[in-house]
């Protein structure tokens, strides 16, 4: 079978509704919804209900919310939704590190059931056996996938899971009488910013290992960094470069030999499902972002879950409660002697857990491995094609294959044309695509990060690459055109400077109105174009 290359460029324009701010829609007296009525008998019994509130604490002036009829509210938010490019619409491979994959619709159906939505976390255990069973079995799946001994599904994001790992590191050393001495956590420059930031919240001094010439964390620097002060290591593998660190087991050994614990940031494990695991690399802990690898949608940035796994030795430190099964019923176990306590209210984001459970059940062991295989195949296909684009390079590890993503560079293009990675990103929006640069600091100059996952067909990948190539060509032909992009998006170039200026920033509509009143010219467009 011969597969035709897709050579057509899409004539795209994003929806532009020019929709007012919600407060501008207000008409005095309109109502969006009415409240359930109070029966007459209740009113006869207790009166107006509010006169019991002490005067000094009773709100006299109602909140200045807008007054809008129901259909207009609906229309407003539907229009806003049309001005947002979800992964269901996009070929969302330009948001590297975020594992933008298909979020199966059936899982949304399951999560929308009253059996999911209308349960309270403090119901008696006998009435939530279904929820507990899903959580228990998901724990079993993750044990198998990671080689760890036990999972907590409580952390509400990758960062929350990282914070839980640093908390466990702290409690572990406290329990061994070394908390005061072990005050350093080591991470790497290509690991997520939260690996460094969460450790600092726990009071740790953060040591960041830089990369070597191959783009991998420098093992010699790690050897120099460890000491009796080392509390732990938080590291990603592969890092954002997509290069698997073959020395990873030595990294964990070096840290263990120094008395530290090793936490594996597996927010994104998509390329290695069923291929390699945290256990074999010597980690004490790891976590999976269920809103990345395990298909739960990203929801504009949550709700989410960072499922946290630990070895047998660390089970007692997990957040409480964990789910157990006594052969007859599922129950919550709060009795973990060294528990760090909690990292979130109640037990975690159940609908996200449910979606991850359903996704794993739909694929099984073979399917999960196929996910990894195709994600890696797609990535290496893209690697070859991007390197053919004028001005784009893939720093480090020349000639080697990458796992699930690659951090590329427009450095040459910028040097040649003055067009930056941000300019390219703006222009990609004109074609209905998103392209992300990378986390700061920009170790790779003018970075961009592509992660195709398993969800996109070759045709779609080719379409995206075709546009990327076209935009790079434009940069060489007409750099000014890119500087002023986007043209076919919802809005035009925003004024970033006012967002960084305390005199001008407006974090709410009321603040915008106040600042505008004080200084009428402040939000007017500069007349220099």
């Amino acid at each position, binding site marked *: 079978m011969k597969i035709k290359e897709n050579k057509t460029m899409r004539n795209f324009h994003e929806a532009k509704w020019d929709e007012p701010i919600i407060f501008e829609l207000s008409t005095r007296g309109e109502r969006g*919804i009415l409240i359930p009525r109070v029966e007459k008998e209740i009113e006869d019994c207790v009166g107006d209900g509010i006169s019991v509130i002490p005067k000094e604490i009773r709100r006299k002036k109602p909140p200045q919310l807008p007054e809008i009829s129901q259909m207009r509210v609906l229309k407003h*938010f539907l229009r806003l939704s049309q001005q947002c490019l979800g992964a269901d619409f996009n070929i969302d491979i330009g948001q590297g590190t975020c594992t933008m994959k298909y979020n199966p619709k059936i899982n949304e159906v399951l999560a929308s059931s009253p059996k999911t939505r209308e349960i309270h976390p403090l119901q008696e255990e006998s009435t939530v056996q279904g929820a507990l069973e*899903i959580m228990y079995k998901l724990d079993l799946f993750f044990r198998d996938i990671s080689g760890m001994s036990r999972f907590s599904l409580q952390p*509400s994001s990758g960062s929350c899971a990282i914070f839980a790992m640093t908390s466990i590191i702290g409690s572990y050393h406290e329990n061994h009488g070394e908390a005061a001495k072990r005050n350093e956590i080591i991470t790497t420059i290509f690991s997520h910013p939260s690996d460094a930031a969460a450790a600092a919240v726990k009071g740790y001094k953060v040591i960041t290992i830089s990369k070597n010439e191959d783009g991998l964390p420098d093992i010699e620097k790690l050897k120099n960094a460890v000491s009796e002060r080392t509390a732990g290591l938080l590291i990603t593998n592969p890092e954002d470069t997509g290069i698997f660190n073959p020395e990873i087991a030595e990294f964990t050994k070096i840290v263990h030999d120094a008395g530290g614990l090793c936490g594996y940031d597996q927010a994104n494990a998509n390329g290695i499902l069923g*291929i390699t695991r945290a256990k074999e690399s010597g980690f004490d802990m790891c976590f999976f972002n269920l809103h990345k690898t395990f298909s739960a949608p990203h929801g504009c940035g949550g709700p989410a879950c960072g499922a946290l796994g630990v070895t047998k030795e660390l089970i007692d430190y997990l957040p409480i409660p964990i789910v157990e099964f006594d052969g007859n019923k599922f129950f919550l176990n709060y009795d973990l002697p060294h528990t*760090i306590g909690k990292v979130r209210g*109640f037990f975690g984001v159940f*609908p996200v857990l449910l979606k991850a459970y359903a996704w794993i059940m739909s694929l099984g062991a073979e399917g999960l491995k196929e996910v990894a295989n195709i994600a890696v195949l797609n990535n290496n296909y893209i690697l070859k094609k991007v390197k053919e684009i004028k001005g784009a390079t893939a720093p480090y590890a020349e000639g080697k*294959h990458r796992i699930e993503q690659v951090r590329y560079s427009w450095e040459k293009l910028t040097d040649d044309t003055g067009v930056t990675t941000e300019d390219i990103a703006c222009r990609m929006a004109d074609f209905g695509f998103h392209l992300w640069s990378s986390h700061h600091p920009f170790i790779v100059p003018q970075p961009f990060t592509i992660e195709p996952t398993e969800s996109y067909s*070759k045709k779609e990948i080719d379409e995206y690459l075709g546009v990327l190539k076209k935009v790079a060509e434009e940069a060489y032909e007409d750099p000014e055109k890119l500087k002023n992009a986007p043209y076919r998006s919802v809005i035009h170039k925003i004024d970033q400077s006012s967002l960084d200026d305390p005199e001008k920033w407006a974090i709410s509509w009321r603040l915008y109105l106040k600042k505008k009143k004080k200084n009428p010219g402040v939000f007017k467009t500069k007349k220099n174009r």
Partner: protein
Amino acid sequence: MKKNKKYVYPYIPNSVPEVKAQMLKEINVESIDDLYEEIPENLRLKKELKLPEALTSEYDLKRHVMGILFKNQTCEEKISFLGGGCWQHYVPAVCDEINQRAEFLTAYAGEPYEDHGRFQALFEYESLMAELLDMDVVNVPTYDWSQAASTSLRMACRITGRNEVLISDTISPDRLLVIKNYCKPVVSMRMIQHCPETGLIDVEDLKRKISEETAAVYFENPSHLGFIESQGQAVSDMAHKNQALNVVGVDPSSLGIIKPPSHYGADIVCGDIQGLGIHMNYGGGMGGFIATQDDEKFVMEYPSRLFGITRTSVEGEYGFGDVAYERTSFGLREKGKEFVGTASALWGITAGVYLALMGPEGMQELGKVIMQKSQYAMTNLSKIKGVRVPRFTSPHFKEFVVDFNNTGMRVEEINKSLLKNNIFGGIDLSRNFPELGQCGLYCVTEIHTKKDIDSLVQALEICLEGRI
């Protein structure tokens, strides 16, 4: 089914063998295994995972998962009086319609250009909350109230340069566990006692404990035990006199009728948006907010995303973007403020829709109806012999403590009996508030009808009959 049959997976388009082969050929590689050459042999998983056999058809999957979920009994099927920070309120259909929109559901971190709608919706959420709270700055939501309170306290420590916080001991115990871990070992915590009669903060105890070490005083209003704290101004004044900040956790559904904490001197306000149009989801519907005034010293201490409105290159066009991005851990790693990442944005959009639907009158009426229905419940429960309601003499909002100590029955037994009558009784406080003995925390919202409440009273009467 043949053992070695290879599926083409509906979720994995390039699992088609011909496509796979073509792509491998393009990159000049024999097999996919070759792409893993950098992974050392000793780290490779040699066995198959032991996961259950795949349910490859969507129908089989649905049957299987719903089969498990059917074991849940829901608050729609029963009458529930459970609250304690996760509340059963009515969720308007429009809220679900918007948060299920694929555009919002599947978006993540696009630029302000292609994701203009995401930025505007979250900016509007911030703005609507700002009106409810009567404060100028609200963050893009964090995980939940527990995280919002934890961060508010750490913000207060950075702002004041102090490292001790005083916390009212009627706080939710679940939340306290989160705050404890979030403060440890950098910030120390001391608990302030409450008056055993009224439940209110013991101002004398606060006076004894507050000092020049104190960064913040934290209390919740209404408290976890449901009563309304009326001494907010006195507590704020005392905090401010000691150059400390007043941090207040609040249930936003009360703010149509109860003053927002900014009116009695709160410097940082936090709480949960789950009650604003989001289903309980077994506790997964939580979302935390933090609010302050527009003071640079405060704004620069937020770890969260803050979406602001700005101009664009075209006159009359609104644009949105991140305010002071450089303060975050995205900008500065460990030198940023705490950490930021994925949290609860979709619930924020949903709460914005809710507030837009409710309007000022809706929020006022909601507060009033909850007051009326919960008072009706208290009045009628207190008629049951041996039952004391409410345990505390202060006025209550939505939740209240039912004292069963004189009934001779434990809350656990009572709740078992109620369950037989299809009622989820209130939260058993005996474990976390042992000083209260056998007490239950009951929650009544706008969704409860007179009949629901009467059923509870009747079931309790029968359950307790002959016990006293």
